[in-house]
């Protein structure tokens, strides 16, 4: 069967913006997403976040040697956030949240670019993820990117992805289809100011 005869390709622009470069309006958009029930329910603290609390958090969690938080902007709106935290030597953990009803492949495309950035530009050797057991969709999402479960407890699955496993997976059909679909989407990692 001939592959890729019909496949839709999307044109847009995806930006990874460090929190300290967001405008006030963009902070408000990001805060709205952080406060969505579907997202709060998956966080360790489910209470609603106030604007001042959000701005203090954003000040604290910029990009530095320990962590890097980006807001994700697609064309003209903030659609979510992505981060790596607990950076120690060449290891870190990662996380993503995207507002619902967004073009579904965008989360995958942003994730692919971010993991690639961590392994290739930030020279990470191992990336961890901690996924709540009540969130099987996120577990599957991580598994599709090559993460494997190393241990679990009553509340969480603890996953890891090595650089070697990532490289082995880089030619997988899942990634190739994703790249084809977003061939016309440009992206940019903005630097910390």
């Amino acid at each position, binding site marked *: *069967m*001939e*592959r*890729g*005869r*019909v*496949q*839709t390709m*999307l044109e847009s622009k995806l930006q990874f913006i460090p929190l300290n470069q967001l405008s006030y309006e963009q902070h408000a958009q990001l805060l709205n997403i952080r406060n969505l029930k579907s997202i709060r329910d998956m966080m360790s603290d489910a209470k609603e976040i106030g604007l001042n609390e959000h701005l203090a958090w954003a000040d604290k969690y910029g990009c530095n040697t320990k962590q890097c938080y980006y807001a994700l902007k697609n064309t003209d709106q903030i659609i979510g956030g992505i981060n790596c935290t607990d950076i120690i030597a060449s290891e870190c953990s990662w996380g993503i949240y995207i507002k619902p*009803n*967004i*073009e*579904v*492949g965008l*989360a*995958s495309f942003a*994730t*692919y670019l971010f993991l690639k950035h961590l392994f290739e530009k930030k020279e990470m050797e191992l990336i961890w993820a901690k996924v709540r057991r009540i969130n*099987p*969709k996120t577990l*599957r*999402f991580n*598994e*599709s*990117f090559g993460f494997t479960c190393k241990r679990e407890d009553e509340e969480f699955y603890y996953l890891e992805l090595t650089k070697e496993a990532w490289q082995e997976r880089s030619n*997988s*059909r*899942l990634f190739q*289809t*994703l790249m*084809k*679909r977003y061939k016309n989407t440009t992206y940019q990692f903005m630097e910390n100011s």
Partner: protein
Amino acid sequence: MKEKIEKIIIQTLQELNDELERSELENPTSKTKLFSRDGALDSLALVTFLADLEDRLSEEFDTEITLANAQAMSQRFSPFKNVESLSLYIQGLLDG
């Protein structure tokens, strides 16, 4: 036509599952959950599944069909919830 579409969806899922290796997709039926909270597909797998399915449907029905459009992929009531809802959605597109 619905049975034919469902058969194509199921074959496409089984083929993709060679790569995904998910137990829920070993013997899919019309009730198999696809892209829902506890569905078998995450967003990365869904993108590949829809691309494969578009190709297969276009060959079978000799017409170009686009499933992975931005509107369908961001609908509140997603047509990708399960095999049956996807089948009805495709039938609607083919009936045009």
